């Protein structure tokens, strides 16, 4: 047991960068405090919105629906996130050689990695579940038992979805390691699976209809789909110790079984995933020359495309954007019919009028939910020494990274725009304004992301997921982007309410984006460059 604790301690000291902050900067105190302030803000804002939702359910005595809904939401999100994180968190870790040389059981090593994965998901889930628990407590005023059960359920709820995603991740990895280009195969299969899950979810018409029609139907649906969420409700309404112990026992047994079974194939898959396909027959190498900035962007693009977790993370929102653009054009009549069944009669002309705004909202969502640069400096890892010894200024390095990220984002957004332009008759001015937004909004997230990464670099990591999904800079960048998204939403809402005119609303959003970009550039050129030069590994 002591061995296990030592291993967990050692792994965590390297791993969970979210609580690891570099203090070698000027305003170290502020930087230390900032993440905590942001965390409190996240919890506060989530609690605020959750309590608004709970208030509505409270009017009809169904406030417990919020707990069920959030337990189900975290289940769904954990699986979606977990499937593509598994590849990096469990396989091909940089500490493989170190751990493999130690006299430890295979299942123990697998368990340590699973545990680390679980702890992160627990923290992630807590961001959603704690506001739900607080909101429920405010309106339902439950007994002390509710709080005890909530703590237990908070700990146990992520176990099954994490295990499920680990099993799915194992199956995908087992499959893709047979391919020559394992990384590309990993990206294609994982993205395909995630899109498939989303497609099935969005096409479950009955489920959506029932959700809208009746809250108690939703209650029944969640009970059928994810029993632990229902059990949570059952435990705090009619406590049953036996059921709770059974549930806890099942979770623990499932973990033990999964670790023992999966560890049988773990090393086989892990070593196969490390095999690099070399050029088997000699071919003359090619000498290519590029301008430093272009060469840097190519290098960065090769780095990020070699990381399946980065690509899936960065491109998922963009793929959804294109899919939404297609749906907006091909399914608009179905959507109108669906609205009319709920008494909302809107004509195609009315829809067409608001298309530029809908498109703007989609662009903002795609651009601001894909924080592509907030991990790009960290991804340099230990190669950062090489980079710093090269005769290229910090500013060029930073902007090359912004350029690489924009190369990934802007073409996808423009494709989505074109799909909408072809199918709807937009005014020239709105086309121009939305194209400008398609450049300015991705710039907002890329410039802010890279700036945040200069403040919170995490250069020492054992796998890319630690940087791309779990690092402080990514969390902060996402939160800031989320805040900007809300401001854009408010601008649109009040713009429409005040009948400002579609073009003017888009112009206002573009103006705001331009202002943020100018501020970001000033921050990068001053504090960002200074911080970049201070990064050490």
């Amino acid at each position: 047991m002591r061995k296990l604790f030592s291993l967990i301690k050692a792994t965590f000291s390297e791993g969970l960068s979210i609580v690891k902050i570099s203090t070698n900067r000027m305003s170290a105190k502020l930087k230390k405090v900032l993440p905590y302030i942001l965390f409190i803000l996240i919890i506060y804002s989530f609690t605020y919105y959750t309590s608004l939702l709970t208030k509505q359910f409270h009017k009809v005595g169904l406030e417990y629906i919020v707990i069920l809904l959030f337990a189900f939401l975290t289940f769904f999100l954990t699986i979606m996130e977990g499937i593509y994180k598994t590849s990096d968190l469990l396989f091909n870790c940089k500490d493989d050689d170190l751990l493999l040389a130690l006299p430890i059981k295979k299942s123990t090593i697998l368990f340590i990695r699973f545990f680390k994965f679980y702890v992160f998901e627990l923290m992630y889930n807590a961001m959603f579940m704690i506001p739900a628990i607080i909101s429920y407590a405010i309106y339902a005023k439950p007994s002390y038992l509710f709080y005890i059960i909530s703590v237990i359920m908070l700990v146990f709820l992520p176990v099954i979805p994490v295990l499920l995603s680990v099993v799915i991740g194992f199956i995908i990895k087992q499959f893709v390691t047979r391919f020559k280009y394992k990384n590309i195969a990993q990206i294609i299969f994982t993205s395909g699976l995630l899109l498939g899950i989303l497609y099935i979810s969005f096409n479950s018409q009955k489920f959506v209809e029932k959700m809208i029609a009746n809250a108690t139907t939703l209650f029944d649906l969640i009970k059928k789909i994810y029993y632990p969420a229902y059990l949570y409700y059952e435990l705090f309404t009619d406590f049953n110790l036996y059921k709770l112990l059974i549930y806890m026992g099942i979770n623990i047994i499932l973990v033990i079984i999964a670790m023992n079974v999966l560890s049988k194939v773990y090393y086989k898959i892990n070593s196969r995933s490390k095999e690099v396909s070399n050029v088997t027959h000699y071919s003359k190498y090619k000498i290519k020359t590029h301008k430093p900035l272009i060469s840097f962007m190519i290098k960065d693009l090769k780095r990020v495309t070699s990381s399946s977790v980065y690509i899936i993370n960065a491109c998922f929102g963009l793929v959804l954007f294109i899919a939404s653009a297609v749906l907006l054009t091909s399914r608009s009549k179905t959507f109108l019919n669906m609205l009319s069944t709920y008494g909302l009669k809107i004509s195609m002309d009315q829809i067409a009028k608001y298309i530029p705004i809908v498109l703007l909202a989609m662009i903002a969502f795609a651009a601001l939910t894909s924080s592509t640069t907030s991990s790009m400096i960290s991804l340099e890892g230990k190669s950062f020494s090489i980079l710093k010894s090269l005769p290229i200024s910090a500013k060029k390095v930073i902007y090359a990274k912004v350029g690489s990220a924009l190369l990934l984002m802007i073409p996808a957004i423009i494709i989505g725009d074109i799909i909408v332009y072809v199918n709807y008759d937009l005014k020239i001015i709105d086309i121009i304004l939305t194209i400008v937004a398609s450049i300015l909004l991705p710039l907002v997230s890329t410039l802010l992301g890279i700036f945040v990464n200069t403040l919170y670099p995490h250069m020492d990591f054992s796998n890319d997921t630690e940087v791309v999904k779990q690092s402080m800079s990514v969390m902060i960048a996402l939160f800031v982007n989320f805040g900007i998204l809300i401001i854009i939403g408010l601008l649109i809402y009040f713009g429409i309410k005040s009948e400002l005119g579609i073009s003017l609303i888009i112009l206002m959003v573009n103006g705001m984006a331009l202002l943020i970009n100018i501020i970001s550039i000033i921050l990068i050129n001053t504090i960002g460059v200074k911080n970049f030069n201070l990064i050490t590994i």
Partner: protein
Amino acid sequence: MIEIKNVTKKYGKKTAISNITFNIDNGEIFAFIGHNGAGKTTLIKAMVGIHDFNEGEIIINGTSIKDDPVACKRELAYVPDNPELYENLKAIDYINFVCDMYDVDYETRAKNIKKYADLFEIEDVLNNPISSFSHGMKQKVALTAALVHDPKVLIMDEPFVGLDPKAVFKIKQMMAEMVKEGKIIFFSTHILDVAEKLCSRVAIIKNGKLIKVGSMKEIKGDESLEAVFMEMEEE
């Protein structure tokens, strides 16, 4: 010429190197020796612009690394102790990338890649990904990338670690050729025999302080460098 003047580097409250001063002239092979954690890598990283330093000045061919780091870096090449290269790139892509950073024209890079790839016998594997290489192979790629732009100053941190005897011999040959052309070679090492046979001057660092600097003859007299080093360590 490299001028290191009163350089001090602190990590928080801990002083890693203190008041280091010495010069390296053109055409010199200079060895930097000291025990583990003595501060060798810290000084090297300060010389190549990876780390900043709290006090002092480092001047490379007349330019201060603090005032114009990019100009200084153009003059030099750095080979780290542990070559953490871009694993996702092919060796040739990495070398091309480094050449691009130094604005090396097509003809020069073609000639030099051929020259050093032949010297280190890596021509056949240049199209392979770096992630498939052993430590020694990575070191050879790092050396090739460092040398393709004809640097005036070559700074290496433990360059012989992990290399096979043939590669070590070839590096020594290459170093001899470079100093003939008036270039500077500065490296840290634990292999005192190599330092003794190869270097014209040497500096010894202990606990962050420079305890001896001078020509090989001045430092060791009639003794071996190893004996002198051990004496100094025990003092």
